C-alpha cells in the first residue's frame, strides 16, 4: 500500500523524519517523497533485498545461547534511514568534542593531582567508591595525555526535541562497524537518493581510527605496529574487531598471540619470530587485560601488559582506567567537569540525574520510583535497571531496599520518551523508537563520526534498542539542506 504521511502516527513522540502535521522535516523531504513513490510491494522487497545483502556480506553479531555455545546472527537492519540536518549536526559534533576533551582532562587529573576533588567539584566519596578507578594507573602519563581515544556517547531525543547525552562509553564502545556496513547496504537499497542528496560520507572512519592510534605510538619515528586485541571469536563484538582490523590493515590478535619480555616490551608471535607491537587497540575490559595485575584467571589478557604500558613501551587504547568516567554517578557531574576544565558552558545537556547519595534527591527518587528510571552506577548494556512506569510494586520495593543499602550504586533519571523514525513493518511503515551512538576519536585532534549508529527498538512501543533484546539499526544520514 502507498505510504500516507498524514496517517503516520509517532504516538506522540518526536519523529526524526515527519512532523506531527504529517509534513516531512526539510532534511528528510526527498527521502519521504521517495518512500511515498514506492509501489505496493516495493517497500517489502527493498527490505528483503537489504536483509539478503546483509546475510551475503556476512554482517553478523553473536548471541550467546543457554547451551553455552553462541550463534552468529544476521544483523537486524531497517532500510529507512534516520536523517539529521548538517546545521543540527555541527552543534552536536561540537558538543561531543567539548565533552570528550573535558573527560580526558578529568581522567588525567583523577590519576594525578585530583584537583577536581580538592577544588570541591567532585565529592571525594564519589571517587573513593568508583568501581572503575584503577589504582594501578595512578601517576601514569599516556602519550598526548589521552586516556579515552575512542568514546561512544549515547544520545537520545525527548518529546520536545531536545537532544541529551544519556551516557558515555569510555571502556570498549562497540557498534561502529555496523554504522559503516549500514551505509553500504543503504547505498544498494536507495542509490538514487545518494545521487540527489548531499549525504555526508562515513567511510573514512577506519583511516581516522588508524591515525588516532598511530598518533600515540611510543616510537613516533618508526612505522607503528598497531594491532587490535580481541577476546576471540566468541565475543559478541568479534565481527567488529575483525572488521576494523581488516579495514585498518592491522593484525587482529588474541591475548595468546602477545608476549611481554623481561624488559617490558610487547611482542606478537609471528611465523618469522617475535615482532614488536607499538599500539594496542584493545577490545578487552580492564580487568582481563593482564593477569599479573588484574584478574589472575584471565586467559584473554597478556601477562605483563600493564608493566609495558606503565613503562611507556606500548600504548593502550583506551587506556586502562579510562572507565572511571563511565560511572553513572560521575556522569551526573560531567556538566560541572566541562565548566571546571574548559571554562565553557556544556553545549549538550545531560539527562537530569538524581544522585541517591544526596539525601534530598534520594527521598525524591524513592517517592517517585514508578515514574523514574533507576540505573546501577557501573553496569553497561542495560543490566540491573528499573524502568519505573513498567515495573511491578514488588520490583520497586526491592529497588528501594537496594538504594537505601547502597545509595552510591544507583542514580535515577526521568524516563526519556525516545524519538521515533518510520520503520518497515511488513508492507508498511510504523514509528519505532531510536537512539544514536556517535563515536569520538581523540589523539592529536578530535574527530567525530558523521552521524553514528542509530539503534532502533523493533518492537512496537519499546524503548529497548539493544541488539540482544530485539533491537536493530538504521543508517544515519547527515544531510546538507539548502
Amino acid at each position, binding site marked *: 500500500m502507498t505510504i500516507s504521511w498524514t496517517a503516520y502516527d509517532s504516538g506522540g513522540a518526536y519523529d526524526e523524519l515527519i512532523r506531527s502535521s504529517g509534513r516531512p522535516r526539510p532534511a528528510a523531504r526527498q527521502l519521504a517523497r521517495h518512500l511515498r513513490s514506492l509501489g505496493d510491494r516495493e517497500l517489502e522487497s527493498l527490505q528483503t533485498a537489504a536483509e539478503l545483502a546483509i546475510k*551475503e*556480506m*556476512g554482517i553478523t553479531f553473536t548471541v550467546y545461547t543457554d547451551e553455552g555455545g553462541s550463534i*552468529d546472527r544476521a544483523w537486524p537492519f531497517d532500510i529507512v534511514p534516520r536523517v539529521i540536518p548538517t546545521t543540527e549536526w555541527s552543534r552536536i559534533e561540537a558538543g561531543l568534542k567539548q565533552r570528550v576533551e573535558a573527560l580526558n582532562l578529568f581522567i588525567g587529573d583523577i590519576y594525578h593531582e585530583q584537583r577536581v576533588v580538592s577544588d570541591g567539584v567532585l565529592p571525594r566519596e564519589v571517587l573513593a567508591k568508583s568501581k572503575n578507578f584503577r589504582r594501578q594507573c595512578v601517576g601514569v602519563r599516556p602519550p598526548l595525555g589521552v586516556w579515552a581515544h575512542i568514546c561512544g556517547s549515547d544520545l537520545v531525543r525527548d518529546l520536545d526535541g531536545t537532544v541529551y547525552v544519556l551516557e558515555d562509553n569510555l571502556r570498549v564502545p562497540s557498534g561502529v562497524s555496523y554504522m559503516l556496513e549500514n551505509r553500504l547496504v543503504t547505498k544498494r537499497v536507495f542509490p538514487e537518493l545518494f545521487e540527489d542528496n548531499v549525504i555526508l560520507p562515513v567511510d573514512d572512519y577506519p583511516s581516522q581510527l588508524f591515525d588516532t592510534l598511530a598518533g600515540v605510538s611510543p616510537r613516533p619515528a618508526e612505522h607503528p605496529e598497531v594491532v587490535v586485541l580481541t577476546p*576471540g*571469536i566468541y565475543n559478541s563484538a568479534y*565481527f567488529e574487531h*575483525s*572488521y576494523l*582490523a*581488516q579495514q585498518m590493515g592491522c*593484525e*587482529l*590478535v*588474541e591475548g*595468546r*598471540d602477545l*608476549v611481554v*619480555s*623481561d*624488559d617490558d*616490551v610487547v*611482542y*606478537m*608471535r*609471528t*611465523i*618469522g*619470530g*617475535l*615482532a*614488536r607491537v607499538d599500539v594496542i587497540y584493545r577490545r578487552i575490559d580492564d580487568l582481563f587485560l593482564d593477569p599479573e595485575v588484574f584478574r589472575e584467571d584471565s586467559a584473554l589478557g597478556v601477562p605483563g601488559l600493564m608493566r609495558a604500558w606503565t613503562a611507556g613501551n606500548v600504548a593502550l587504547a583506551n587506556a586502562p582506567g579510562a572507565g572511571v568516567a563511565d560511572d553513572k554517578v560521575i556522569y551526573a557531574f560531567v556538566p560541572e567537569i566541562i565548566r571546571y576544565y574548559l571554562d565553557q558552558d556544556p553545549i549538550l545537556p545531560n539527562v537530569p540525574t538524581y544522585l541517591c547519595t544526596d539525601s534530598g534527591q534520594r527521598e525524591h527518587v524513592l517517592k517517585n520510583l514508578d515514574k523514574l528510571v533507576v540505573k546501577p552506577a557501573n553496569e553497561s548494556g542495560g543490566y540491573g535497571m528499573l524502568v519505573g512506569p513498567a515495573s511491578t510494586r514488588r520490583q520497586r520495593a526491592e529497588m528501594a531496599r537496594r538504594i537505601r543499602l547502597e545509595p552510591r550504586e544507583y542514580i535515577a533519571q526521568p524516563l526519556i520518551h525516545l524519538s521515533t523514525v518510520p520503520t518497515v513493518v511488513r508492507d508498511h511503515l510504523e514509528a519505532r523508537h531510536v537512539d544514536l551512538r556517535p563515536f569520538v576519536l581523540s589523539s592529536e585532534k578530535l574527530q567525530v563520526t558523521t552521524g553514528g549508529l542509530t539503534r532502533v527498538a523493533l518492537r512496537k512501543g519499546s524503548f529497548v534498542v539493544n541488539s540482544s533484546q530485539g533491537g536493530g539499526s538504521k543508517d544515519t544520514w547527515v544531510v546538507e539542506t539548502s
Partner: protein
Amino acid sequence: MLSRVAENLYWLGRYIERAENTARLVNVNGHLLLDLPKGTATGWQPLITITGSEETFLAQFDNFDERSVVRFLVAEPRNPGSINTSLTAARENARTMRDFIPREAWERINELVLFAREQSASGVSKRGRHAYLSHIITGSQTIAGVLAGVMNSGPGYNFLLIGRNLERADMTTRIIDVRSASLIPDEPSTLRPFETIQWMSVLKSLTAYQMYRITMQSRVRRADVLTFLLQDNDFPRSVYHCIQDAERAMGELPRNEAPLRTLGRLARLVSGVEPGKLSQAALHEHLDQLQVELGQVHESVARTYFLAQPMPAVEPASLDDSPPLLGEAEATA
C-alpha cells in the same frame, strides 16, 4: 603473519581436503559394491579403517553396515573426521581470520557448511547420497579455486597449501594401505576379474583413474597403480606430488630449515623403493613408515611456526634491535 593465523590456515587447508576426501571415499565405495558380486564384497568396514576411526565408530555403532558407516562418515558430530565436523571445523578456523580470507571464499565455505548440515539426512540416504557427496566435492573444489584465484600468494596461502597437501598425502597412503590389504593376494597370481575392478576403485577413490590411463598407458595392474599413486610426478594426488607441492610452499617461508629437512626425508623415503615389488606385508610397513614421517613433518611445522611453540629464553639485551626468532633452537637441533 601471526603464528595463530598460520596455524588456522594450515588447518583450514587440511579440513576442507579431509571433507572432500571423505566424500570421494564414500562415493566410490558405494559404486564399487554395486559392481562386486555378493560375498566377495568387503563391505563398508574398510572406510572406517582407512579413516583410522574404528574406536570412535565402535563406541557408537554395533556393526559396519552401510547405514551406520555412511552416517558416521557424513554426519556424525562425534566423529572428528566426518564431513560435517571437518567442514564445521574449517568454518570455525575461517571465522577467526575473516580479515585474512577473501570474502568470496568465506561465503563459499559458509554456504558449503550450511549445505552439509541442512542436507545431511539426504546425504545419508541411499537415494540422495550421490548428489550430496558430489556437491561436497564440487564445493571443496570451488573453495580451493576461489582461494587460488583471489587470495594473495604469500605465507598465508603457503600454509594453506602445506595443510592441504599433507592431508592429501596422508589420505592417499591410507587408501592404498587399507584397500590393498583387503584386496586379493599379490600378483602375479591368477588374474581374477574382480581384482581389476578393485584396483580401479582404488584409483577412483583418488580420482586417479583417468590420469592413470593417460600416464601409464597400461591396463590396471597392482605394480603400476602403486607406482602411480605413490611416485608419479604429475598426478596431483600422488604422494610424491603432494610432497613436492608442500615443499614448494614451504620453500617460501622463513626459518624453514627443520620442516624442509623432514619433508626431504619423506621424499627420499617415497622415491627410494619400487612399490610394485613390495610384498603385501612390506608394502604395509612402507606405508606405515610414510604415515609416521608425515606426522613428523606436521610436528616440525607446528614446532616452528605455530602458537604452541615453546618460548625460547630471550636475552633482554638483544630485544631492542633484532627480535629473537622463535623456534630457533629446533631449527638448529
